[in-house]
């Protein structure tokens, strides 16, 4: 039934706005706490070197057409040589990265801290929203939705006839969760605008796994064909000069 429900403006004053304000404040608080708790990580020589090797290998892959074929071939061997190529990772070492990650106490502590600082506020806020703000219609979404979203967006509302566009405050919570990045970038400066989604993605990735990226780069370089781009550039030079002289 598509009848229009009239929502009390008190909902806006006492639900939507406070919820947003609370989430912004929690985000700011989390930022400051993380700044306080951040331990200075001494970069490891091996990790730095591997990172640089990967950058250099990537440059080679991307710009291979700009250097002569002979140079490309010598560099390719240098990188992918089976015995002592830079990108070649002997089989035994490949699996150690994850084990090393867990055994190194600093890394483990760091990850735990990062995860905790994210999980706890989220859980608390979610519980708070569910406890206080459930059981009523909070907002109306301006576009129509299918019935499948009912379970997700209308958790506290036990009427099955209400249009799916009318959602509960839990969905407002999720909307804020994913959408406050822009606001954070204004308040906290550009690079600190880390939304929760990005943090979640960071949490799932296991940090820097060098051996896999090295292997990937090696495969990339093995595949690539040298496409000597200079003759085309020469043609372009002629055209440029012709245009200049016109």
């Amino acid at each position, binding site marked *: 039934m598509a009848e229009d429900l009239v929502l009390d403006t008190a909902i806006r004053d006492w639900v939507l706005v406070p919820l947003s304000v609370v989430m912004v404040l929690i985000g700011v608080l989390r930022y400051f706490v993380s700044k306080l708790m951040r331990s200075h990580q001494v970069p490891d020589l091996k990790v730095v070197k591997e990172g*640089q090797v990967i950058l250099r290998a990537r440059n080679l892959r991307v*710009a291979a057409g700009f250097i002569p074929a002979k140079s490309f071939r010598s560099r390719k061997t240098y990188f992918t040589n089976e015995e002592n190529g830079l990108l070649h990772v002997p089989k035994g070492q490949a699996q150690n990265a994850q084990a090393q990650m867990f055994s190194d106490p600093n890394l483990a502590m760091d990850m735990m801290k990062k995860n905790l600082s994210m999980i706890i506020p989220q859980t608390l806020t979610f519980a708070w929203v569910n406890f206080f703000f459930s059981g009523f219609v909070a907002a109306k979404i301006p576009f129509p939705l299918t019935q499948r979203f009912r379970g997700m967006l209308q958790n506290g509302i036990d009427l099955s006839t209400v249009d799916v566009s009318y959602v509960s405050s839990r969905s407002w919570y999720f909307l804020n969760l994913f959408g406050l990045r822009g606001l954070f970038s204004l308040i906290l400066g550009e690079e600190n605008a880390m939304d929760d989604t990005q943090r979640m993605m960071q949490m799932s990735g296991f940090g820097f796994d060098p051996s896999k990226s090295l292997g990937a780069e090696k495969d990339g370089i093995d595949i690539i064909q040298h496409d000597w781009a200079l003759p085309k*550039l*020469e043609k372009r*030079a*002629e055209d*440029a*000069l012709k245009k200049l002289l016109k």
Partner: protein
Amino acid sequence: MVGASEAAQMERLESQVDNGGGGAWEYLCLVRKLKARRSDKVLKHGLSILNDHRARSKLGAEEWTLYEQVAFAAMDCQQYDVANDCIALLSKQFPRSIRIGRLEGMLLESKGAWAEAEKVYARLLDDSPLDQIIHKRKVAMAKAQGDLSAAVKLLNKYLEIFMADHDAWRELAEIYVSLQMYKQAAFCYEELILSQPTVPPNHLAYAEVLYTLGGLENLQTAKNYYASTIALSGGKNTRALYGICLCSVAIRQLTKGRNKEEKEVSDLQTLAAEALQRDYKQRAPNKLPFLLSMLKNMKLNS
């Protein structure tokens, strides 16, 4: 790389500040951002801000950055006492800081006390062995003492770890060229081209090294790279235009006996010659006769 608009803005601010208008702080910030080397101006205007209590307190936390900038400028202008004062103030505020330690090392360097500077840098490297700037300072010291082979060795060791640092590759290439080790310089320029393929000066430098090395294949590749410089710079690079002409002449001389591809890309050469003539007509008409006689000689020699 300094963009043209930012360079123009810096010039404008410079003239404005020199003539007594305000804006010294913006000028200093811009110089710092663009890493331009205007030490005398920085010193003059920086000191005028620092010695004025009100202006200094207006800066807040930025005053320490200004102290650092003025210390650099003072060292460049050989005003060691000014630099010493700045560094003393900074080290009082930030004790045991690596950044201040670097400044102290640089002060010793600028005074010529190489051994002590070496000791300071060694101590700093113990604390943080992966500090790129300290490594580069050691290379700079070796180069300043004239010991180019030591500089080369240090740079190579640095590049083994930090191999994606294109500035280091460029520095190494220039040192190799000054030592006339052209093959190694060519390798370094190739690395530069790999990391920044659309920057014309890299192509130009590589082409020049190839031309210097000589040999038919190198000359042909050099001609390719001169052409790519022209393509990337829109035809405005005079040196590349000259390079095309010279390469064509040299190639023609080497292949004089064989009747290979005659008319291959002589379009490029005639176009380059024409572009050169027009350029000289516009910008240096009194040198035009020299250019014309040179071009005539080149065509005659074929």
